[in-house]
């Protein structure tokens, strides 16, 4: 067999695998999209149907009027953008210190960082709420934003793993040139860890964007609610407005899909340490 033929076979095989797996992963979204366009009577019809008959675009227009969608979207965006900014500012630098700098107490502090993740948030929820009450932050978005500026343990741990994976050669070279540790971090290491930073930003963006419990507890004014709280208003004990609920759910996911689509390129651009033997 000639190499070209092998290549074609490999390529075909790759596509077959990818498409098969994609089919499995795309189901939830296709279903969401299809349900968001169905009339109520069709949503739970038996046997289940994929294609809405007729396509009910009005689910979207009605849903946007039913809740103050644009206001909620703006509030969600504010909280999300600030908290994402928060983790970008705080997590990489802390992680860098854990991964690459020598200091007394580093091990202990890292151990504590891991430890705080092991207590289920359900039991710290009330004390934390009381803390924010004392600070006078309840009723504002601050509890959902400010903590992110001081670091989030999962992201610190993740970034640490990435920094540990970066060779020390670059740092040594820069240090010999007399650069300060902060400059090394900002100009060399931070850009090298770009894909990790972007992953962390993406995760925080998603977490804030879809967070339900946080806004529910801390926001006390309907005007400052987020979209995920708005979603609840399509549900009630006496039967839910599924079509509209799915329409808003779909709208909610679009920004993240677009964001991800453009971000994912950065994950493939493999870095090469030109002139440095790893």
């Amino acid at each position: 067999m000639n190499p070209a033929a092998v290549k074609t076979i490999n390529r075909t095989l790759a596509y077959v695998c990818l498409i098969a797996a994609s089919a499995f992963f795309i189901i939830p979204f296709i279903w969401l999209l299809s349900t968001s366009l169905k009339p109520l009577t069709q949503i739970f019809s038996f046997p289940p149907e994929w294609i809405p008959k007729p396509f009910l675009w009005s689910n979207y227009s009605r849903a946007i009027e039913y809740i103050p969608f644009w206001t909620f979207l703006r509030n969600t965006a504010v909280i999300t953008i600030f908290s994402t900014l928060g983790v970008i500012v705080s997590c990489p630098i802390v992680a860098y210190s854990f991964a690459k700098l020598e200091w007394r107490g580093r091990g202990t502090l890292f151990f504590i960082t891991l430890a705080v993740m092991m207590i289920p948030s359900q039991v710290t929820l009330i004390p934390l709420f009381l803390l924010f009450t004392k600070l006078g932050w309840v009723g504002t978005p601050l509890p959902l934003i400010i903590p992110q500026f001081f670091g989030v343990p999962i992201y610190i741990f993740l970034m640490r793993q990435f920094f540990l994976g970066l060779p020390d050669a670059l740092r040594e070279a820069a240090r010999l040139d007399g650069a300060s540790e902060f400059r090394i971090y900002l100009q060399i290491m931070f850009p090298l860890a770009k894909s990790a930073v972007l992953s962390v930003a993406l995760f925080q963006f998603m977490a804030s964007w879809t967070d339900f419990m946080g806004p529910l507890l801390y926001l006390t004014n309907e005007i400052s609610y987020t979209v995920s709280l708005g979603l609840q208003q399509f549900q009630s004990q006496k039967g839910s407005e599924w079509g509209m609920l799915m329409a808003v759910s779909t709208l909610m996911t679009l920004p993240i899909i677009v964001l991800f689509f453009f971000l994912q390129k950065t994950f493939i651009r493999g870095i090469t340490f030109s002139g440095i033997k790893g």
Partner: protein
Amino acid sequence: MKKTWKTAMLTLVNLLTASLFVTACGTSTGTGNADEPGVTTVTLWHGLTSIDLDNMNNVVKVFEEKNPTVKIKLVYTESSEGSDQKLLTAVAGGNPPDAALFDRFKVGTWAAQGSLTDLSDMAEKSGIRKEMYYPFAWDESSYQGKLYAIPLDTDARLLFYNKDHFKEVGLDPENPPKTIAELESAAEKLTIKEGKRFKRVGFIPWYSQGWLYTWGWVFGGQFQDAATGKITANDPKVVEALQWMTDFGKKYNVEDITGFTSAAGTEEMDPFISGQISMKVTGNFAVKGIKKFNPKLNYGVTQIPSPSGKDFTTWSGGGSIIIPKGAKNAEVAWKFLEFLGKEEGQELVNKDSNLSVIDAVNVKYGYKDDPIMKEFINVLPNSHNRPVIPEGQLLWNELASATEKSTHGNGTPKENLDRVTETVNKALEKYNK
């Protein structure tokens, strides 16, 4: 260098925080929080949507016209689990709303925790008395002889049956089963099974609203000793009810019907609506769903069959409105509670949507002349409410789990109910110190 970075960082954080405060304040003002002189704003947390929300807005409008010194601010929290948590944290944080809509079932628990305002004196002054309401509604709003909530609306469970299926198998659709024996034979006629798969199920006792509470009371059992307040889930009549449910399940092979009763089923995917099950016990809240999803369904509603074919009964839950402990404007909020508790408010708040807790209002709605609704109105005066105890949720969960265990053959009904009784009474001991 480091110092400059620190300062830069600090400035950045400060800048961001400042801009954040601007957005935060921008969103929180403009709602007119500042009261005009002489006007008090009462905050009410609720989880109402669509028609119920329209009704509530209407109540507020009428109330504010009558009470120019009071403004009611409605804040949507959520209608289920989340709203409890929000209220819970707010009460714990010492900053609760002035009033909140509240599941009546939880009044006992919250009152025992000392988190609800005692309304007894205010109710007496305003002339709000037990006789105005269905007995269960008042009982469920009270704990240890004190009133802690104003009941708002109610529900009831009855047997829904598919008239077309009845005709098809030669049963009289105008003469539904009255006794347990008749129910069993109808179920048998209606069931169509092919191998392990059901084409159609006649009836499943524990499906939908067929809780052990439902059957326990129908069989004449009691869940609480009126004199001592102790739980009596192992009352022989309750055991008998559970035994009957278990035997029923055995006959049709329980494992094969899990499909119909699996936890993942909600009211929307209701096999009764799609004609896959011929009879089920459910509440008046299902009527709306049927109208919405299958308006052509030809069905009837009848009293839940009892062993004797007489003394029909059921149980009811529903909503209420409470004033949390620590509310800032309790006295003013009471005015609104009072308005909702009296006939005028009742009529406005439940219009075209719920059953009122006041019989006269239900008559006014014309429910007595509606072939479906009249059955509910007829049973309400002898309906039960779940025991008002600090551990209501525990008892509920324990009963549900005893039902599941028994019907799946893990332990006998007697054993399981003895354990429920013991567990719950043990949990109740700490409140009697």
